[in-house]
């Protein structure tokens, strides 16, 4: 079935929309940060689908001769640094959420007062 060949793109769009729904209807700031992580992982699925070539091996030429066609390495390099940067950005977001709780006493985004209260 040729429609199944687009499944990678569809899963990326689905994860993006589901994560966005979680951010919009969240009732807890930490739950919101985790939904941001889901949105970030949708970009990994999209990049992976872009870089994949059917039937080709991984771009490591240790055991295969160096002129075999392989999967695209440029998008994999993008994904690799993205993953490690994700965890530190999540640490920053969680620290922000903890500080908001310290100042306002609540983690519910609907009940946060404005700044300078």
């Amino acid at each position, binding site marked *: 079935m040729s429609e*199944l*060949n687009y*499944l*990678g793109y569809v*899963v990326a769009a*689905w*994860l993006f929309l*589901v*994560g966005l*729904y*979680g951010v919009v209807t969240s*009732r*807890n700031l*930490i*739950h919101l*940060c*985790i*939904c941001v*992580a*889901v949105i970030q*992982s*949708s970009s*990994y*699925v999209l990049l*992976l689908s872009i*870089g*994949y070539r*059917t039937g*080709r*091996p*991984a*771009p*490591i030429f240790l055991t295969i001769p160096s002129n075999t066609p*392989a*999967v695209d390495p440029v998008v*994999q390099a993008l*994904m*690799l640094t993205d*993953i*490690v940067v*994700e*965890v530190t950005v*999540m*640490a920053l977001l*969680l*620290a922000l*959420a*903890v500080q908001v*709780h*310290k100042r306002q*006493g609540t*983690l519910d985004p609907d009940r946060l007062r404005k700044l300078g209260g």
Partner: protein
Amino acid sequence: MEALQIAILLFVAAAGTAVVFTREPAAQAIVISFYGLLLSIMFFLFQAPDVGLSQITVGAVALPLMILLALARVKKQGRGKIES
């Protein structure tokens, strides 16, 4: 695409939905650890071993750990406010 790749993509979509619809952050930390493991299996099945190596440690260890530590801090702050 092979059957295994289709299956892992569907599992990833289902696990992502599960992460969002788990409303309790403490339970969400466990679900996101499992989601990270599924993502790394997906990376290996799509011929991306470098990326899978990054995702295994980060997604299964570092991210749930930070979520649980932030939750513990919030709980301690909440307890301090009630007592004072």
